[in-house]
Structure formats: C-alpha cells, structure tokens
C-alpha cells in the first residue's frame, strides 16, 4: 500500500462522513440549537447572578455569554464525539462497520481516519455556532477565529477518541442512553465550561479538584485561550496526553486479536 492509497482512503472516509452529515439535517440543527439555547437563554438569565472577575485570557470584564462560549464550543464537540461513537455502535450492529474493517489498510489507520472525519464535522458545527454568536455581538478577536482552529482539532480528537473508546466497550445500542447520564452531563458540569474553577473552590474543595482533573476542563481552557491567541500549556499537555491515551485504548478495543470484537459473540446474550 502506497501513501497515495492511504490518502485516498482518508478522503473517502471523510467524504462519506460529510455526505451522511448532509443527509441528516436534523442532526445539524440539533447540534446547533443545544448550545444556542445555553447561550441565548441560560447565559442571559445567569449574567446577573454570576459575577466574574478579570482573569486570563480576558483583559477586561467580560459578559457571561462571552465566558461560556468556549465551554459551549467544547460541548458541541463532546456531543459530536459521543454521536460518532453512537453511529459506530449502530454501524457495528447493522454490519456497516464490516465494510470499513475489511479494507486492506491497517486498522489503526482506518480508525484514525474515522476519528478525523468526525472532527471535520464538528469543526463545521463549531464555526457555524461562532458565526451566529458573532452576529449577536458575542465575539472574539478576529485572529482568534484562526488560532482556535488547531485547538479545536486537538480537542475534537480527544473527545472523538473518548467516544470511540466507549463504543468499543458498549455491547449494544441500548446501553448508549447511559452515556448521556454518566459521561456527557458529569463531564460538562464538573468542568470550567459554565463557571470559573475558583468559584467552584469557594463552594467545595473536592468538587474543585474533580473539575481540575477532568480532561474536559482542559479542552475548554485550551479553546478559551486559543480563541484569544494564547496557548495554555497545561491544557495543551493534558488534552494531547488524553488524546493519545484514549486513541491507544480505542485501537486496542478494536484489535482483532484482543478486543471486544473477539469477545462479543461469546458474551452471554
């Protein structure tokens, strides 16, 4: 297999993901409505309740809407990552996954392509969200829209890899409802998406510690700083490290010699 063939494969997988995405317009609308409700309703109501001090990367007092925008971006990616994992479980049950896995290219590569395709879709969602927020006056420095891109790719990869990892452990589609309760909500609320962590420390030290260990917090902070043209090194390291860890485990989970594929049929029905 040559490098050109690897590239064709990547292009094919991204192309299919894009086609599927275009066919599911409801999914696109849902992916946008969710953060917009948070932004326009929740944030507006909370603006008065929650006082924010000046903190990096902000150089002045910012509106609450501005504060939660990076968190909502990460939320879009979180949902997208979980949705991709849902579609992988679905593909596996429906048999579409086999089309992917009988490709002669290495399995780790196929899974990485799949991950990247999911990230591309999430980027589209994020930029449309940013555009709507911008038209409402919730904006970042112009250059920030460019510098946030690498951060979005990395955080998208981390959350997508987490979804893929979960999908390799989920045996059936029904179990997926649990993901919502046990992964998405805890990750989102126990993070710096909605409130700065110093606020959290005031109410509970334990919760504060949980939040600061949550990889989602670091994804949010990575995006927040990148949106203002800055690099949060700690967040970068944590997100990069978690991406590698989650991907490694997901590839292990789909390994034909070891993972769930081999065990699945043997599991008690």
């Amino acid at each position, binding site marked *: 297999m040559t490098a050109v063939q690897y590239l064709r494969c990547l292009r094919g997988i991204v192309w299919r993901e894009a086609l599927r995405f275009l066919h599911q317009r409801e999914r696109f609308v849902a992916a946008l409505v969710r953060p917009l409700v948070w932004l326009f309703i929740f944030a507006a109501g909370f603006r008065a309740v929650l006082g924010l001090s000046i903190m990096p990367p902000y150089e002045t007092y910012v509106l609450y809407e501005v504060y939660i925008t990076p968190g909502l971006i990460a939320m879009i990616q979180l949902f997208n990552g979980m949705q991709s994992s849902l579609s992988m479980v679905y593909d596996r049950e*429906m048999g579409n996954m086999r089309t992917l896995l009988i490709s002669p290219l290495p399995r780790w590569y196929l899974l990485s392509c799949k991950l990247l395709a999911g990230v591309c879709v999430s980027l589209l969602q994020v930029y449309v969200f940013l555009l709507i927020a911008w038209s409402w006056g919730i904006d970042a420095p112009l250059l920030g829209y460019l510098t946030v891109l690498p951060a979005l790719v990395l955080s998208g990869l981390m959350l997508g890899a987490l979804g893929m990892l979960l999908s390799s452990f989920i045996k059936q589609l029904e179990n997926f409802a649990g993901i919502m309760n046990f992964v998405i909500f805890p990750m989102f609320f126990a993070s710096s998406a909605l409130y700065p962590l110093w606020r959290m420390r005031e109410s509970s030290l334990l919760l504060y510690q949980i939040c600061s260990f949550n990889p989602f917090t670091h994804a949010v902070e990575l995006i927040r700083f990148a949106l203002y043209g800055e690099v949060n090194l700690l967040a970068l390291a944590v997100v990069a490290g978690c991406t590698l860890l989650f991907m490694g485990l997901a590839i292990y989970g789909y390994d034909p010699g070891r993972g769930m594929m081999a065990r699945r049929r043997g599991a008690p029905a």
Partner: protein
Amino acid sequence: MSTAEAIAGTTPEGAATPALAVEGVSHSFGKRRALDEVSFTVAAGEFAVLLGQNGAGKTTLFSLVTRLYDNRSGAIRIFGHEVRRRPSEALARIGVVFQQRTLDLDLSVTQNLLYHAALHGMPRAEARARGSAELARLDLAERARDKVRQLSGGQLRRVEIARALLHEPKLLLLDEPTVGLDIGSRQSLLNHVRGLVREQNLGILWATHLIDEVAEDDRVILLHQGKVLANDRAEAVVRQSGTADLKAAFTALTGAGGTGGEGQERAP
C-alpha cells in the same frame, strides 16, 4: 506458499496455490467451541459451498477469514498470505458479501461503491469506471444514482456483489447471500456468481443452509457443530455416504434425522 507449491507443484507460476486454505482452525467463544479443527481449501476457479445449518459455525469462519477477529489456532491463507500475519495482502485479494446487509441506505448506489473503492485505495476515476461496468453486468446501470434505500432485496444483493468485485479480487466470499430473496432472485444471483467462476476464474466460497443451491460439480464442505464432516465434490459426497441425494447424505452425516421433510429444500 512455497511448501504448498512444492507439494502440488505441477502447475506453473504458483497457480496451484489455493485461493483459500483453512488449516486446522479452531475457535471458541468462552466455553462454546464454534469451530473445531476446520481444514479445507478452495482453488481458483472453484465454486465451493460451505453447507451447514444455522449455528454450524459458518459466520464465525467468515469473520476469521475476513479478520474481523483473529483465529487463535491454525492458519488461514489467501493465495498463500496468512490472514493474521499479512492481513493487508490477504484482504486486498478477497471480496466479501456478508450475511447482514452492509450498504449505507442513505447514500446512492454509486456513492456506496466509491466509498468501498476509497477504502481499497483505488483512484476515483478507475472506481467510477469499474463501478459502472459491474453495475451494467448486473443490470443495475439505471439505478446507479438511486438511494440504496429504494432498492429491492435482490437488487441490494446485486449491488453488494458489484461492490465486492470492485477491486478485482480473486476470491469471493458470500455468507448466506440468498437469505430473504424470492426464488427468481436467488436463481439469478447463483447464475451470476457461477458465471464469474467460468469467466474470471474466481474462487468462490458460498455459505448456505439451502441444499438445492449445490450443483453436482461443486465442492461441498459440510460444516456441522463446528466440524467438517465432508469435503469433496457433491456427487462424491453422495456416493460415499451411500445415499440417493445430497439431502439424504446431509441427514446421514449430521445425524439430523426425523425431519421427514419430503420436498423440503432446506438442510434439515
């Protein structure tokens, strides 16, 4: 590969290397033994029927040959390439039609084919040309732009065959391809695949539980509870079992008696 050639070694250019060689393969799920020391070969240009009841281990075998998961013991070679050691070379040479429908319902026929071609690293122009040729051969040319969802069961299967042949494999694996099809579609599917054997010298492994899909000249690999009970030409299997036809031979060999079933076409 070299040993196989040395043993068979009469034909030039390694033509004697079997398209598919399954050698002493066993596989278990937990305590249940799904395959027990299974061995057989399929030559290029041979139509082999993997015959067995539901639960005989056919799908497990397909999963191992296509490396959905690895075999724990024994070896599976495709034109001499062991699936576990050299999956890329092995998988590039096979086309597969799975028992489950694996087409993307929301995409068009052509889009499905192009996706498959990309997974095999084929250039887009070549994929389009090959796709149109295969669809034309299967009388599906005018459905190329339709969504897969709009096709009938028989048409879906034909698209899956066109897709499996896109990258010009030398071995075609079909797992219960006629399930859910009416008699007419079944027959035309069989005829088409038999035509491929004649015209393109493809090796075929056709898994089924329907005895009437077997022709006299076919190799029959009779799989029962994970074991190979017979592996020979259909007429030889019948002769050796001392019975009148394949159905009686099947009953005698598997001990699946008491079905009566006159005129039934299914394996009892």
